[in-house]
């Protein structure tokens, strides 16, 4: 069945399907029950699956992730919600020292199929701690998988796959795209979770992005097309593992790469992509890999976020600089 639905609704439907098909799946988080979460992503789930499956937790992020680990040890598959990106840090210790490492520590005996959902990114005019993109802080940690869908269909299917994964998955939800609608075919057979997708074919330059920045890249490519530039867009979908093969294939064709993310450029995922693609495509590249992202400064007050975040002109500027080599 192909329906048009908002990205938030697609995640909701995906969680509903998981709760329905596997009695071990649990939803946990602050306000996820009656309220349906501050973004309504879990709307109606507690009503239909009860308080023992959709659990309103105390306001303690370390406690949420720590108890989810315990539940996973007992055989459950918890999907926990961290209310906002900037609130994940009390749980950072549990995620980094326990969730990521217990499988290796147990020499493979223990599996922790926990999904940590994090609405992330800016562009919604929020107060401090509500607009950050901390994916690189998690990508540095072996044992975690990190994904971020850019559209409703991916949101639906990637959530299904994340819940089925026997590894812990940090699921970054592009909160400013929550209300963007897209077609979701709930009977389609999805591609692999960690495989990138070329969402627009082009010949002159590759834009690589994930989550909220894919839509921006589409807009960039539209404007560039009017100027006679034919851009390719790779929706990375997964930050760990990163699908370098797909990026490489695209760059071998276009010979130019610009990586776009909201997270600060310094030590961001773009840095890793630039380093590895330079190594893999040294003789194909016509220009250094360029990056467009946040600055090495705290996320600014909302009135300044348009200047801080990559926008149409900043990405176009990078495209121009790359093509000028």
């Amino acid at each position, binding site marked *: 069945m192909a329906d048009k639905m908002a990205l938030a609704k697609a995640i909701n439907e995906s969680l509903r399907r998981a709760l329905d098909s596997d009695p071990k799946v649990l939803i946990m988080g602050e306000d996820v029950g009656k309220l349906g979460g501050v973004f309504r992503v879990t709307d109606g789930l507690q009503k239909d699956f009860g308080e023992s499956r959709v659990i309103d937790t105390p306001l303690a992020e370390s406690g949420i992730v720590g108890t989810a680990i315990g539940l996973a040890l007992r055989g459950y598959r918890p999907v926990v919600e961290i209310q906002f990106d900037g609130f994940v840090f009390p749980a950072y210790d549990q995620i980094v*020292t326990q969730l990521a490492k217990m499988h290796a*520590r*147990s020499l493979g005996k223990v599996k922790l199929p926990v999904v940590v959902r994090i609405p992330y990114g800016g562009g919604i005019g929020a107060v401090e701690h509500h607009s950050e993109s901390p994916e690189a802080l998690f990508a540095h940690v072996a044992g975690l*998988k990190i994904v971020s869908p850019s559209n409703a269909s991916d949101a639906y299917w990637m959530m299904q796959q994340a819940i089925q994964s026997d*590894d812990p998955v940090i699921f970054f939800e592009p909160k400013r795209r929550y209300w963007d609608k897209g077609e979701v075919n709930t009977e389609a057979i999805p591609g692999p979770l960690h495989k990138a997708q070329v969402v627009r074919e082009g010949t002159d330059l590759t834009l690589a992005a994930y989550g909220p920045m894919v839509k921006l890249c589409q807009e960039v490519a539209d404007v560039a097309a009017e100027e006679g530039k034919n851009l390719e867009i790779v929706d990375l979908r997964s930050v760990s593992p990163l699908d370098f093969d797909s990026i490489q294939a695209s760059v071998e064709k276009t010979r130019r790469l610009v990586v776009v993310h909201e997270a600060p450029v310094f030590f961001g995922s773009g840095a890793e992509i630039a380093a590895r693609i330079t190594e893999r495509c040294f003789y194909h590249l016509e220009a250094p890999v360029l990056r467009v992202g946040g600055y090495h400064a705290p996320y600014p007050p909302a009135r300044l976020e348009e200047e801080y975040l990559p926008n149409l002109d900043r990405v176009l500027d990078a495209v121009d600089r790359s093509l000028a080599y």
Partner: protein
Amino acid sequence: MTVESTAARTPRRSAGSKAGTTGTKRTRTTAKNDTGAEPQLVQLLTPEGKRVKNAEYDKYVAGITPEELRGLYRDMVLTRRFDAEATSLQRQGELGLWASLLGQEAAQIGSGRATREDDYVFPTYREHGVAWCRGVDPANLLGMFRGVNNGGWDPNSNNFQLYTIVIGSQTLHATGYAMGVAKDGADSAVIAYFGDGASSQGDVAESFTFSAVYNAPVVFFCQNNQWAISEPTEKQSRVPIYQRAQGFGFPGVRVDGNDVLGVLAVTRWALERARSGEGPTLVEAFTYRMGAHTTSDDPTRYRGDEERQAWEAKDPILRLRRYLEASNHADEGFFAELEAESEALGKRVREAVRAMPDPDHFAIFENAYADGHALVDEERAQFAAYQASFADEGGN
């Protein structure tokens, strides 16, 4: 009111805070119990080995047989022997580090023997006695201290989780596991070990909150061994640790941690509460870390020997021996046999450790992920190629 008088209020506030930091000297220099009452202490066996009656907890050890008492004694002796062997192995360079449990045998054996097979244990890194009770091969505990793995046993074969080094983390895992037990409608219980130092961790406070809110069948077993490396318990808490439970809405009890019978009784009571749906309990086993924090530590830098000597008189093994002898529950043959068994255990552990091979180089990449990861595969292949390059040059 004039504008002037309003303005005068502001400096008064800042003057007040200034006085707070530089002015009035605080009278309290060390934390102390504000409740006024002497902390309770459940004790069934005195340091002299006398059995004392306890109206509340006697019933939990009422049917204990001489054989079971000898069993507890044997557990403690063998655990201490194993612990001493591990310390020696560290001194000989066979282990990189060892965290001795010396002095805490009663706390661990008493509580460990209170657990049922289907209960689940979440230890710190010092629960060698509990591991013994759960049937984990002592030699397996040594892998991580030798550096050949980070946890050498399958947690699910004995319901004994891997040692957790980050202080207090496991209390949340225990709580989550207990929430799962309750969801499953099982009557198993969960026990989480931690120390006086860990009682300051946010995770421990959060585990108290979660377990109370969800009425999880978990026993929080705090071994207050008086020292968190160099910091005394006064640096962790202003009230006796067991009293913290009250604020979270569940009972806390302090038991003489060097009295194996008392610990057994109190832990049985707490586990029974968990099983019967009464929720969490905090047990504070008041004991003493007779040795260093680990083999890397030097306690002479922060504590005097008099304190240690005072605790030596309360030794957990000695007091049970006195009781066994006074009540004719054990004869010389028993003690002699146990001595021989101890030595055999020491020898077996020594040999097992010395025979423990270094892991294969490729173990670095094993089990980083359950479902695999492209980057790990790529780096493993690079590492293999790098290693193979030496073979090409005629190396090994």
